[in-house]
Structures are given as structure tokens and as C-alpha cells.
């Protein structure tokens, strides 16, 4: 039976190839994370964060450029007044808040009018960035920093474009209506625009999980650790994503995303690339990629910076159903941007952003989940068929988990060494437990969700899915 032997040999070789490919991908990803960890540690040690808000004011207030905060709102009648009040109370010398009522079906506009005694006003503006029809503008003499824009519904990107059109500040700040900003968020994030005004076109900030924190009047007044395990795991995940990955990539000029929850942009630069793109769920990443592309093509020096200090807090999903929808959507958004700008992939014309930035997305986001899932399915199957050496498999798996734990703990260590925002040693111990635990199950299930995002992208699924939030009022 030589044919059968040949077939068996081929199966064994195939199984080994798959196993090695999965292990190699895992190790490559971990090596990449380790590199990011080192880059982030270096960045933090060279520019340690300023803990005192008064010092920030002293250093930057005189030279701080005016900023427009752009707050899109859709059916936010219950929370919008508190959100706007907290925005108006930010510590920054020159800013205005432009709230865009994006065709809400509830009483969002009316509650704003009533709460702030607004009345219709005229303001000269240009439709430089495409947006739906603007129905009216509202302001009040006793709230000179506030402008409310009422417009036809068009989605978040459309609402942000409307706010950019209305803005007269050189810097605009994009955010979500439910983002909780630190009182000195603008002062912290504006630093790159003050220190390097010629080159800086965008600045991202660290987003943290608000679950478990004490919240009062739209502000996090006491940092805490989430009680919900899923939110706790996301706390570590956010530390890895922001404090490690984004800080590291900004350090080598390859940052391709600034979270939609908080980001500062040079207004003219956003207009030069046509504003936010419609028809994508990843408009935040899309904008940053467009900026890179624009400046690389012009061969003009530019900088997309990142501030490691927490500037914004957001509510994390606490159920698997909601989290899975969120992650699938994020992944779909990343893929949409990746393939929309596929000409940049590994293209030396775009320098590091094409080779490192897009190369990283290709390996980690596009291929990574697929290969890993292949591995999770095929390797046990091959083992059951008796074609893989289980001893080596366990050993290599242990190395992969070991790396994963080092990286998760490393991200937490960066936070503890440079920022120290968690309240006490106990909370640190709890989070360290989560840092270990996230490697056993959470990361793997995340890959399934991302794979679902890939499927949605391939099948052209649209929409955001139902995003259910508990709301901050019920926080301890």
C-alpha cells in the first residue's frame, strides 16, 4: 500500500506545516508586541507625564491655540445636558463646544434649547467638508462657548464634518457624545501642537475604561477597577492598545489610528483630505490614514502624535453579546480602511506607514485572526489523528502564553511606573490577575469576533449593530 503511506506522509507534513505556521505567527506577533513594549517604555521614560494640572496650565496656557470640541449627538436627550455642562467646564484657555444634533428622533435639540436658553443665530460657514443639510444654529449670550448645530441625520462622520465646517479654531477635537473627558484633557493633548506647531497635524489620547470608577457630573472623580470580569479584561486590553501599541507606533511615526472617542486634528489638514469619509464604520482610522497619505504624497514633514496620559474615559460593554458586536464592527472598520487604501500596503512610496504600519495591519489584523483560528481548529484535530508530537506542542504553547503574560503585565507595569492612576496595591493585584487571565480564553475569543468582522466585511454587511450601554449614572 505505498499510496496510503505517501498520503499519510503528506498529511503529516501538512499538519506540521500548519502547526509551525501557527506557532511562527504567534511568536512573530509576540515579538512585535515586545518591540512595542520597549518602544513605549522608552517614550515614557524620555517624556514622563505631568501629574499636576496646575503645572500644565502654567506651561501651556499662554501658548495654547484655540480648540473646537465637536460633540455629535443622536438621540441623547437623557444625557446630553450633563455631557455638555461637563464639556463647558473643561480647563483650557480658548475653546468652544459645537454640539451637532444629527437629526435625532427624540428631544435632544429641545432639551439643549431649554437647558441653555438657546435661540436661533446666524453664523457664516463654508461647506468645505461634505455633510447633510444644516437646519439651524443655536447659541446663547450667557454661554458664549456653546454652539448647537441642528442638521439632517447623516451619521457620526457627517456630523463631525458639519462641526468642522462651523468651527473657526485651528484645532478641532473629535469625540463621542458619551466620552467622559478629564478636566485637563485638552491641555494634555495640545502639548504636541504647542511644542511642534509646524509639523503636528493630529494627536491621539489614551482612552480608559470607566466601569468601576466613581463618576459625578460627567467626570471620573475616583478611578476604580471594574467589578465585571469582561470589563476588567478590557481594562488590560486598553492598556496594551493605548499605552503600549499606539504610543510605540507614534514614536516611530506609524500610528494609523486615533480613537474616535478623543482626538485633536489640525482643522485645515482635515479639510485638505476632504473631511471624514462617509460609508465606513472606521471613519476615525480612515481619517488618520488619509492624513498620512496626503502628507507622504506631498513629501511635507508632518507628525501624528500620541499622548500617553489618560484623557478620556469610556464605558466598556459588560456582556459577551454587546462586546462581540463591538469588536466585529471595529475589525470591519479596520479592514474597510485597509482595503480602501490597499495601494499603500508595503509600498515604499509611503515610507514606514506603508511598510511598518500597513504591514502590521496585514500580519496582525488581516491574517492574524485567520491563521490563529485555523490553528485552534486544525492542531487539536491533527493531534487527535496522531500526526503531531504533543510534547513539542505543549512546550511551544507554553512559550506563547508566557510571552502573552509578559506583555500584558508589561503594559500594566508601564501604567504603574509612569502614570499610577489605579488607586491602591489591591487594585493592582486584581488587574494583574486579569493580565494573566486574559491570555486564557479572552484573547482567543476575540479572534473569533474579529473573524466575524472579516466575514461581515466580505459579505458587505452594513450598520453598527445594537450597542447597548448601561449608562454612567448607575456606576458606583
Amino acid at each position: 500500500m505505498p499510496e496510503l503511506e505517501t498520503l499519510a506522509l503528506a498529511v503529516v507534513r501538512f499538519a506540521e506545516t500548519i502547526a509551525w505556521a501557527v506557532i511562527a505567527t504567534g511568536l512573530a506577533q509576540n515579538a512585535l508586541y515586545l518591540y512595542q513594549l520597549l518602544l513605549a517604555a522608552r517614550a515614557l521614560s524620555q517624556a514622563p507625564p505631568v501629574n499636576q494640572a496646575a503645572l500644565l496650565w502654567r506651561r501651556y496656557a499662554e501658548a495654547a491655540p484655540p480648540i473646537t470640541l465637536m460633540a455629535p449627538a443622536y438621540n441623547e436627550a437623557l444625557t446630553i445636558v450633563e455631557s455638555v455642562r461637563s464639556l463647558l467646564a473643561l480647563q483650557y484657555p480658548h475653546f468652544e463646544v459645537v454640539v451637532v444634533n444629527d437629526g435625532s428622533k427624540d428631544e435632544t435639540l429641545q432639551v439643549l434649547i431649554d437647558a441653555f436658553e438657546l435661540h436661533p443665530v446666524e453664523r457664516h460657514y463654508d461647506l468645505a467638508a461634505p455633510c447633510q443639510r444644516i437646519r439651524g444654529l443655536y447659541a446663547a449670550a450667557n454661554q458664549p462657548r456653546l454652539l448647537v448645530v441642528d442638521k439632517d441625520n447623516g451619521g457620526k462622520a457627517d456630523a463631525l464634518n458639519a462641526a468642522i465646517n462651523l468651527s473657526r479654531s485651528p484645532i478641532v477635537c473629535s469625540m463621542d457624545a458619551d466620552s467622559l473627558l478629564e478636566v485637563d484633557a485638552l491641555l494634555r493633548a495640545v502639548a504636541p501642537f504647542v511644542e511642534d506647531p509646524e509639523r503636528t497635524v493630529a494627536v491621539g489620547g489614551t482612552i480608559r475604561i470607566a466601569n468601576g470608577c466613581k463618576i459625578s457630573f460627567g467626570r471620573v472623580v475616583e478611578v476604580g477597577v471594574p467589578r465585571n470580569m469582561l470589563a476588567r479584561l478590557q481594562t488590560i486590553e486598553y492598556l496594551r492598545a493605548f499605552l503600549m501599541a499606539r504610543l510605540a507606533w507614534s514614536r516611530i511615526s506609524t500610528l494609523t489610528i486615533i480613537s474616535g472617542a478623543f482626538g485633536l486634528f489640525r482643522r485645515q489638514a482635515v479639510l485638505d483630505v476632504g473631511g471624514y469619509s462617509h460609508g465606513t464604520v472606521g471613519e476615525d482610522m480612515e481619517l488618520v490614514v488619509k492624513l498620512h497619505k496626503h502628507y507622504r504624497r506631498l513629501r511635507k514633514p508632518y507628525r501624528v502624535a500620541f499622548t500617553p496620559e489618560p484623557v478620556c474615559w469610556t464605558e466598556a460593554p459588560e456582556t459577551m453579546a454587546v462586546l462581540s458586536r463591538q469588536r466585529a464592527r471595529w475589525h470591519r472598520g479596520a479592514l474597510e480602511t485597509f482595503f480602501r487604501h490597499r495601494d499603500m500596503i508595503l509600498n515604499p512610496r509611503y515610507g514606514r506607514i506603508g511598510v511598518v504600519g500597513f504591514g502590521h495591519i496585514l500580519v496582525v489584523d488581516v491574517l492574524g485572526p485567520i491563521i490563529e483560528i485555523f490553528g485552534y481548529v486544525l492542531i487539536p484535530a491533527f493531534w487527535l489523528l496522531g500526526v503531531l508530537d504533543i510534547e513539542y506542542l505543549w512546550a511551544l504553547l507554553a512559550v506563547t502564553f508566557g510571552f502573552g503574560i509578559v506583555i500584558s503585565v508589561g503594559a500594566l507595569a508601564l501604567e504603574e511606573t509612569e502614570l499610577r492612576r489605579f488607586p491602591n496595591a489591591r487594585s493592582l493585584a486584581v488587574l494583574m490577575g486579569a493580565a494573566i487571565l486574559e491570555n486564557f480564553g479572552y484573547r482567543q475569543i476575540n479572534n473569533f469576533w474579529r473573524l466575524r468582522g472579516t466575514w461581515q466585511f466580505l459579505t458587505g454587511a452594513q450598520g453598527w449593530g445594537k450597542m447597548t450601554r448601561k449608562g454612567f449614572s448607575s456606576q458606583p
Partner: protein
Amino acid sequence: MSSLTLIWVVALVLIGAALAWMTALIVARFIKESRSTTRSAERRLIIQALSGLLRGQTDAVGALSPFVRRPQVLAEAILDFQGLIRGADQERAMVALRNLGLIEALEGRILDGSRDERLTSVEALAALGGEEVKAALRRAIRSKDPNVRMAAIKGLADAGAPPTPSRLLDYVGTGELAPSRIYAEVMRQAVASAPLEGLQALGRQDLTPLMRAMLLDALGRSGAYEAVPALAAAATDPDPDVRTAAIRGLGRLQHPAAAETLASALADQAWTVRSAAAEAVGAAGLVRLAPTVVPLLDDPEWWVRFRAGDALGRLGKAGRGLLEAAAADDARPVAQRAAERALAEGG
């Protein structure tokens, strides 16, 4: 050692290292928590002593003196406290601190402290004021840390002793300072205190367009009318950013002698210059230039249309009359809309 054993060793070392790291962090946090409590208590004591000093308590200086050996805590407390008081009270507190020998202690931290400590120390030093401090700040300019250098120069400028404009330009030329917005602020202070030297510096051949624009901006803000001819000359510079800065400067000086230059700038190729010129005409109240602003109401660039409408609104009856005429002119829909909005926004 077999390859299998080696892989297991690597895995166990990684996991062991992570666990050790975690444990070390938790232990360090316990220690830091107790230190942080001590530090907060020290800062409270310093603030209490400084408040006592202002109330004339005789033992206040004695309460402060042990902290001279802890200059970092003292520096942080000074920066907190300084924001709360002004005038004679502030000076009294700072004199007492100077007499304690704090200048020397803070200078030591500028040399030996961590990056954060160096910066806080130089800022606290600047807060102390006095001639001795100025000398210490001048020495701090030689620091290897660019942030300390900038803070020292800013401290000198705030104390009314900025470097000369030419010296400031040198710092950027040699790469000792970056042309940040803080630097631009210091340049404004330097030129305001020595406008003639600022004018002389404008003649330097080594200035990049960015530095020339910064200097022109500072001259415009200085209020020195001697700068008008130089700004007018710079309004024909080949670089649009330089021309824009020159026109903005003329707008700030609001001198009638700039009228011809502004009239020419209204027709400049660069929209930033046209926009700045329209704004300057409005700010200077040059009513006779109002008719030359009107064509800008249908400029292809929105900012120019907006500034033109705004400028006409500021030019009294004549400007408002021209706006009303443009608003009624159906033949020029773009100008009509700009004029309508300017009239509505102007109230």
C-alpha cells in the same frame, strides 16, 4: 539540553519573570503609597508655613527651613502656592524662601534631578524672582535638556529680562531650542522689550521663512510704529507665510501709513495674505479701503469672504452700506450670501 527542554525552560523563565515583575510592582506600590502619604503631608506643612509667613507668624521661616533639604517637595509646593497669591504677599513669601538658600538647592536639582525634577525646579526657581534668580536661570540655559532651557528662558522673559531677539534666533539656529509656540511667546516678549533690536534682527540673512514670520509677528504685537516700514517691506516677500505675518503685524499696529500696502495685499495671490489684509483693513478702520474689500466677498476661498464681510461690518456706516448693497445684488450670489451672513452675524 534537548530542544524540548530548552523550550520549556524559556516558557517557565518567561512566566516566572512576569510573576516576579508583578510581585515587585505590588511591593513597590506599598512603599510608594506610604511615601506618597509622607509627601502629601510635607506639602501641606509647607503650604501652612507659607500661609503663616503671610500672616506674620514668627516661627513660619523655622518651619520651612528643614524642607530646603527636600527641594523637590518645596518646588512643587511653591508652584501650587504661587498660583494662589499675588502682589506684595507673593513677593514677601518669595523673599523668605530666597533667604532660606533655596536658590542654590533648586539649582542643584536642575543639574542632578530626574527630567521631571529638573523642569519643576527651574519653574519654581523662576517663581522665586529677584536678581540672583535671573543669574541662576541664565546658567540653567546651558542645561542639556531642551525643556529646561526653554523653561529657563521663559522664566527670564516673565521676569522682564528676556534674551535679546537676536540671541533667541541664535538658539533656534544652533538647534538649542525648537521654534515652538512657547518660543513664539518668548520672542514676542523679547521684541516688546527691545523692538529696535527686533528690527535689526530682521536684517539677518540666516533667517528661515518660519523664523522671519515669527519675528514679524512679534514686531506687529510690540506696538512699535518704527516697525511699519519693515513690515510693509516684508509684505512683498516671496514666501506667503512671511507675507501673511507681515500683513497681520500691520493689522495689529493699525497705522494709517500701512494703507497702500494693505490695499496691494488685498489682491495677493495667496489667500492667507488676502484674508489677513481684509482683517487688517477692518481692524485699522481704513474706511477709504472699504470699496477695495468688496470684491473679496466672492473670493474663491471661504476665509477671505468671511474676513471681508467681517471687515466691512467694522468699517462703520460706509462698510455696512457696501454690505447691504452686496446683500441686495442677485447677480453675485456668492458675495450676496457672504454679505447676508456678515450682516446677520454682526447683529
